[in-house]
Each structure stands twice: as C-alpha cells, then as structure tokens.
C-alpha cells in the first residue's frame, strides 16, 4: 500500500492520541500524522521556512506542538521547544541564542513571545491552550491562527535525507550561568529509535503515556522516539500530569509504558488500581521500590541526559541488576568513572564523575548551539562527555548513582543551575555573596534556597529577601525562584576555599519548611 493511501484505511493503528483535561480528544493514525505534518511542512515552506531555520515552539503539551515539531523535521528546519514556565527575559535569550526566525505558540503565551522576540518574522497561535479555551484577552492576540499553516500536501517538497542535520533544540541547565541549547540531529532520533525500544521493551502494540513536558528529552526521545520511530507504537499525550486521572487514562487507552517521577507515586498512593495493561515504568537514575504501589508494574531504572539523547544506562525488565543501581551502559555508549579533579580512572568502586563517549550527532548531542566554548568544555580531549554526575561502579559493572554536581538542582523534573540564580542574586545591592542549594521537597525532589552574606549597604533582612525574590521572579521561571533566603556571616568552606554546598544543604534541610 502506498504511503498516501494509508490515511484512508478503515481501521488503523494510532500514532498519537490526544487526551485533554476536558472535552473531546483526538487521534492520528500513522498515515494521518504523516499527511498532517506534510501539510504543515508545506505551510512552513510557504512562509519562508527553509532547511536549517530555527522555529520556536512555545507550547504546553498539545497535538499542535507535536505536529509542528515533526513538520519542521520534514522541511529540514529545527524545532526549538522551550520551557513554558519561562519568563520574557528567558524567552528573549532562547530566541536570540538560537537565531530563531519564527514562533508557534498558544494564546496564553502569545503576548509574552511577541514581547520577547520582536525580530521574529512571524508568530502563529493555536486556537486554545492545550484544549482549554483562551480568555477573551488572550484570544485578542492579533496573530494568525495555527491552522493557516496547513497547506497542500502536494506542495510539500521532497528533501534528500541528511541524517547529521539538526532536527531539534532543547534547552538544558547545567553548571553554567545560562541554559545551553542542546542540538539533536535526525541521526540522534534514529539512534534513539534503535536502542530505546530494547531499553524499555517497547513493542508495536505498546502505548506510552506522555504527561511530562514535550519540551524535554524524556517526552521527545525516551517516550516518543522509542515508541513511534522505534516500535510503531502509540503515544497518549496529556496536557500535564493528573493524579486524579492517572489510572483512568491508563485503563482507557491500554497504556503499557509510563515515565516515573517522585510526584507520580507520591500523589497516586492509596488510589484504587483498575484492571490495566501497564507493563513498564521508566525511572530516571535510581528506581525506588514502588512496584507494589503501581500494581506490580516493572520499574526500570535508566540514566540519561538531554546530551545523551536516550537512556545511556538501563536495565531492561528481564535483566537482573543489584537493587538501587541504574543498570549498565547501553550498547553504543562507552563509560568511565574518573576523579573529578585529577581525571584518574576509578575502577575500584570509588565515587567519581561519569564520563560518556559516543559519536556526536548519533549517540551524543551534536553541540550546544551558539556556544562553541561550552561545547568544547563539556568534552575531554579524547571525546568523553562530562556528565557532572557522581557515580560508582558496583559488582558486575552495575552503575550506582551517587549525587549530581553540587551546582545542579533537580526541581520537579527540571534541571536548574545554581550559578544562574546566584549570578542574578548578586545584582541585588547589599548582597556580598550568595550560594544557592537544593532543599529537599516531598514532591518536587528539591527546591532552591539561597544563603546570603550581606554587605555593609544591605537592606534589612526582610526587605533584602523581598528584593532577591522580586529580581528572581522577574528574570527566572518560577521553579528557579528561591523559596527562602537565609543569612549567614560566611559560607562553610571545602578544599581550595570552595563553598561547601553539601553542608549548606544540610543546614537548609534542618530549617523549618519554607513552603
């Protein structure tokens, strides 16, 4: 059967099922999805988008977002998916850093995107906010609707496949001050499609429930590239995680695979589990013993970063690994554990930094767009990527996660750079020095708190705290805003006079909860 005829099959296998919070859902078969993305590609081309152009896609989870991303790939353009909790200052940086030429967004974000990207050639706006109607004020954005991008499929030009060409950009925070633009190539997606299904035992009848944001690698690669490009399975897309609908959606769509975060199992605890077909839950790094809580589903640990594209370590459900480990290296990735100061290779179980090697643009990301220095600094001379994560090798080669880099926070699944927050806080008059650390949080893993050393011209404690919070709210996404400010005379110090952030974390966890 020719590709063009697939969309007219009477009974077809769904690629994408949209499950909004309320109202009618929608579904696209593989044939329908291909036709839709080719029509959108024709529309993008008609609006001047050509190979290599960067198109910002600033949306909460929605079918338009997914279709637009794949339409960019058809054109050869690059979908830049950005965190929707970003404020205008961050959005301006995303637009400028990627040389973006156009944007696709939702009514709720249209005014902010327009303010942040005055040089964009065009902006189109979806009709609603991920299934929720726009307010009258939001609907009066004045931009063209997303639907105008639908062109004639016959006008979609054929393009010679270029596997090493960029396909997408995802921003990630590290230990640098500003988020970095991670470039994924088409070959990265093809690679994820090859190894992802094996890592999580995905199959053609598999159904992956995606409630994590599509602007992150977990949804784009771990979930969708593994399921759709790798196995011909189905994605069920929700606007966001819903504890109250969790089991209902899983049962309704015969979901077989999910991604797991602490907020999932802490908020569904105690719920009645209906008959379901859930097979696998994929947990980043260390998988806690939560299989009983999920009705006996197999919980698979996996380690990966935006830069490693897909799970770089894992333990498929049929493999036996020591409890508490994150599995063994995925074939195709070389790994070393080294002393983070001396680079001595550690093979005796000591904790060190995890280094990962693969071909850039295939197993590993291509580059940080517009940041050649950051790209160079993230690799060793012999091509190993520095993950910044501390691990140790245990019996049988299983890798045990120890801790993330001291300047990286994990807030509700979002990577947060302590340095980015600190650099901003130092702009407040009266802040002589500041150290941001993560304080434990029951649902979000951790939240940022700031330890501040006041200078002689500092305002009173409460006023200074207010100034710090205000500048953070103005310039940073809400999950990066410090939840509390603690004043100290000086910081505890480690070797080389570095701030001992582990001690500050202990202090922070000893204070009453500020949230």
């Amino acid at each position, binding site marked *: *059967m*020719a*590709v063009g005829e*697939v969309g007219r*099959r009477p*009974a*077809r*296998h*769904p*690629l994408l099922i949209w499950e909004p919070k309320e109202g009618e859902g929608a579904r696209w078969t*593989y*044939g329908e*999805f*291909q036709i839709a*993305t080719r029509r959108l590609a024709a529309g993008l081309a008609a609006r001047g988008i050509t190979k290599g152009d960067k198109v910002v896609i600033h949306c909460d989870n929605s079918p338009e977002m997914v279709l637009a991303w*794949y339409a960019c*790939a*058809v054109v050869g353009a690059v979908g830049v998916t950005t965190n929707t909790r970003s404020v205008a200052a961050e959005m301006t940086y995303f637009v400028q850093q990627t040389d973006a030429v156009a944007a696709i967004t939702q009514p709720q974000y249209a005014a902010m995107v327009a303010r942040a990207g005055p040089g964009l050639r065009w902006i189109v706006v979806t009709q609603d906010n991920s299934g929720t109607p726009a307010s009258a004020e939001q609907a009066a954005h004045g931009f063209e609707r997303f639907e105008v991008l639908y062109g004639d499929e016959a006008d979609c030009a054929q*393009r010679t*496949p*270029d*596997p*090493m*060409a960029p*396909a997408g950009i995802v921003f990630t925070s590290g230990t640098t001050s500003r988020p970095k633009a991670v470039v994924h190539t*088409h*070959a990265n*997606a*093809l690679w994820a*499609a090859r190894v992802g299904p094996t890592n999580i035992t995905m199959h*053609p*009848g598999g159904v992956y429930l995606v409630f994590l944001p599509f602007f992150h690698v977990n949804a784009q690669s771990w979930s969708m590239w593994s399921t*759709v*490009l790798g196995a*011909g399975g189905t994605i069920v897309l929700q606007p966001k995680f819903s504890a109250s609908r969790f089991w209902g959606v899983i049962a309704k769509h015969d979901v077989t695979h999910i991604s797991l975060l602490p907020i999932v199992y802490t908020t569904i605890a105690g719920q009645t589990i209906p008959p379901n077909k859930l097979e696998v839950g994929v947990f980043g790094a260390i998988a806690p013993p939560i299989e009983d809580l999920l009705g006996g589903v197999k919980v698979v640990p996996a380690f990966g970063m935006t830069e490693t594209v897909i799970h770089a370590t894992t333990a498929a459900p049929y493999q036996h690994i020591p409890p508490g480990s994150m599995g063994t290296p995925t074939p195709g990735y070389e790994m070393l554990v080294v002393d983070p100061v001396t680079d001595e290779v550690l093979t005796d179980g000591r904790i060190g930094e995890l280094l990962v090697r693969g*071909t*850039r*643009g*295939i197993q590993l990301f291509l580059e940080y767009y517009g940041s050649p220095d950051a790209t160079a600094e993230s690799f060793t001379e012999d091509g190993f990527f520095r993950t910044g994560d501390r691990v140790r090798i245990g019996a049988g080669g299983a890798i045990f996660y120890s801790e993330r880099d001291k300047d990286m926070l994990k807030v509700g699944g979002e990577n947060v750079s302590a340095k980015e927050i600190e650099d901003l806080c130092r702009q407040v008059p009266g802040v002589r020095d500041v150290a941001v650390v993560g304080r434990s949080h029951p649902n979000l893993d951790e939240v940022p708190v700031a330890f501040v050393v006041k200078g002689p011209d500092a305002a009173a404690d409460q006023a200074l705290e207010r100034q710090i919070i205000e500048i953070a709210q103005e310039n940073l996404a809400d999950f990066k805003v410090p939840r509390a400010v603690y004043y100290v005379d000086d910081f505890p110090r480690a070797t080389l006079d570095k701030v001992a952030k582990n001690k500050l974390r202990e202090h922070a966890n000893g204070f009453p909860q500020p949230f």
Partner: protein
Amino acid sequence: MDADVVASFQFTGQDIPWLLAKWADAQPDTHC
C-alpha cells in the same frame, strides 16, 4: 573518527520523515 563517515555508514538515506514514512507504510492494522 569522523562523525560524518560514521553517519554515512549507519544512517545514509535516512532521517525522521523517511522513518515516519516507513512506519506509515508498514504499520499493520492488527493492533487497533
């Protein structure tokens, strides 16, 4: 190792639209 050489060996003639088209053509109806 030149990444482009590796890529040309592993993925020549392939990209995301190519793979989607393959699935659209090959995905059987039996999993509905």
